[in-house]
């Protein structure tokens, strides 16, 4: 049995990264970090250096010559160490990153077993976002589907209907699935970002449920029970690979429509100004990676001109450059509980011809 495995991932040839998980077998069995990115997995080639390397397990931070900020960050040229973040129920993690001033980025993450489920969403995804941003690609917190080479994007905050609408479009309208949480936009083309579907009671499509094994169904029910018993304090999404029941995925397509989803009392749809959309998409991304907004602000205290410090100023600029003038932009408001009727309306507006 090997104690650690190095695996290589490639996101549409925009960037590559390696993950090395040095954690113990039990931690790995509980939360498989690498699984989340398995749709991007490629053959590992030791001769080719990746753009980023992520190492999970205990690490010794390199604090010599660092400036200390607020007793939690340690900063020097190209290097940032965050000595620990606490989350619900005593979940903890810490990370450091080197190579911020060029070359290969190396991220080292240590987490206790309660913190382990959060490191993908809170650290690794954020650094992948940073890496893509460096390559001029805009990561969107959105789902997307494609038909006839045209992509339709649904951007939303949590619970806004991203997964629900993408699955409905795929199952009912036979459109190709491109991602339910993130997609990439570069020069007017939407690229898929297939990660495991984050399923919870409110977005569980019956077709997904049919495809679950008995074990997965039990686990799903168990987490739903925990959610109810803790009055919503603990919320664990069940990860399900989209490739199991969505073989008709699409790699890339021309952006046709970008829909910004908002939740309120009823259904409505209206065109949206380009500047407003870019501003909303930036807020959406900040809320998604809020701890990263903080880390960028910390690094800015020492290196205000660096790419990390200016990340949130460059994001809207890059998005503006990648967003084609001819794409239709609209705001769709849906009720909190998305009924079948609203689904049909929203899909017609979001993927239909009429603007």
């Amino acid at each position: 049995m090997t104690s650690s495995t190095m695996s290589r991932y490639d996101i549409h040839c925009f960037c590559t990264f390696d993950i090395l998980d040095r954690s113990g077998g039990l931690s790995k069995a509980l939360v498989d970090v690498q699984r989340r990115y398995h749709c991007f997995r490629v053959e590992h080639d030791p001769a080719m250096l990746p753009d980023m390397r992520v190492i999970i397990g205990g690490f010794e931070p390199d604090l010599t010559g660092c400036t200390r900020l607020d007793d939690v960050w340690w900063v020097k040229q190209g290097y940032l160490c965050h000595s620990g973040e606490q989350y619900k129920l005593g979940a903890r993690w810490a990370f450091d990153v080197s190579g911020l001033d060029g070359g290969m980025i190396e991220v080292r993450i240590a987490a206790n077993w309660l913190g382990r489920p959060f490191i993908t969403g809170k650290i690794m995804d954020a650094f992948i976002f940073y890496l893509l941003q460096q390559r001029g690609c805009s990561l969107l917190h959105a789902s997307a589907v494609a038909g006839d080479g045209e992509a339709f994007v649904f951007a939303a905050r949590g619970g806004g209907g991203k997964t629900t609408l993408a699955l409905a479009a795929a199952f009912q309208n036979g459109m190709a699935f491109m991602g339910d949480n993130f997609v990439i936009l570069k020069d007017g083309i939407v690229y898929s970002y297939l990660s495991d579907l984050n399923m919870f009671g409110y977005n569980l499509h019956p077709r997904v449920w049919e495809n679950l094994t008995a074990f997965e169904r039990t686990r799903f029910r168990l987490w739903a029970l925990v959610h109810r018993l803790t009055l919503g304090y603990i919320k664990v999404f069940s990860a399900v690979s989209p490739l199991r029941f969505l073989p008709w995925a699409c790699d890339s397509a021309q952006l046709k429509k970008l829909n910004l989803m908002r939740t309120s009392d009823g259904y409505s749809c209206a065109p949206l100004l380009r500047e407003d959309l870019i501003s909303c998409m930036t807020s959406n991304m900040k809320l998604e990676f809020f701890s990263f907004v903080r880390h960028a602000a910390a690094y800015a205290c020492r290196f205000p001109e660096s790419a990390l410090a200016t990340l949130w100023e460059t994001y809207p600029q890059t998005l503006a450059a990648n967003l084609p003038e001819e794409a239709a932009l609209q705001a769709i408001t849906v009720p909190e509980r998305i009924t079948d009727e609203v689904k049909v309306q929203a899909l017609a507006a979001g993927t239909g011809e009429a603007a």
Partner: protein
Amino acid sequence: MSASYSFYDFHGLVGMQVIDHERSGLPGLDDPFSYFHVGSLPDIPDVTLELGSFEPQFADCYLVDHKYHVRHNYLYCEDTWRRFRWRVEIEGFESGPTHIRLDLRGGGLRGVILPGMYSKMLLTRQLLAHKLSEKGCALAHAAGAARNRRAVVLFGRGGSYKTSVLMSLLRSSPEWRALGDDGVILKGGQAWSFPTFPAIFRYRLSHKDNEALTVLDRLKMAMNPAGDDAARVCYASGAEIAALVEMRAGGVDKLTIEEVSAAQNVAAMYTGMRLEQHNSVNMGFNDVYPQYLEAYAYIFPQNELKTGEEGNPVLSVAASCRVSLPLSPGRDDLQSVSDFLNEINDL
């Protein structure tokens, strides 16, 4: 049960009213803004903070992240930070007089002993900063002291020895008057005091060489919240900014003082204030208010809340420099910085 009303006047720049419906904590310690306490306010308060349980009116709202109820100039949410949990409703979120209703619970022992303090720490500082910036003032995250109506302002992140240097400076001559150890109000070329937790500050100045307060210290303060009269601190009311100093800890082996351009230092101070919004060492409740702003901006992208550089008032300072201390500076290092600041202030 009758509510208690208290009023705060921040140098005639911003007025605040606190209506407490149910609880009172330890006097003095319980109120971070006790220095600004006044009997009444001449105008309608810019900020009203109403503490206690309330009925939120969040009909016709957008819902963001299952959590934030947002409509124009309004936000309501139920939220948690560490062991605290609260419900908060903010009317006048974007413009006009702001009315906050806050029902803060939990927090363990701290929440039981000092409910008023934590309620006042949750959002007030950020809102005051916002109200001040509307009037062209910056609420700098800085320590400051003044002598002969000339002020030195020390900004830097938590743990950069701002307070230690300030203490050293105040002890060096009785002519020095504190402006604050966590905040200073700046406008144009002038500085006004923003003392928070004056009781704790007085206690530190008279009894402590370092910033760490033990349980025994806290007990002593609780027993004698008015503080040691002999060491009572006087606060300067207003002064010309003689020097803007960036404080850094680490990255050097010995004390280093270098000259920096004023523009660079002012920009660095604003960068630090941005981080202060997310991570306040003294006030806690990290990331709470910035997330409210972002959730609001997701629904109303064209809002009047200026969070970027355009919201930063223009400042002018006579001198500016950067002081880098080693990670564990000696007493002589702090003394040297204090001597240097004395010198600069006399120029």
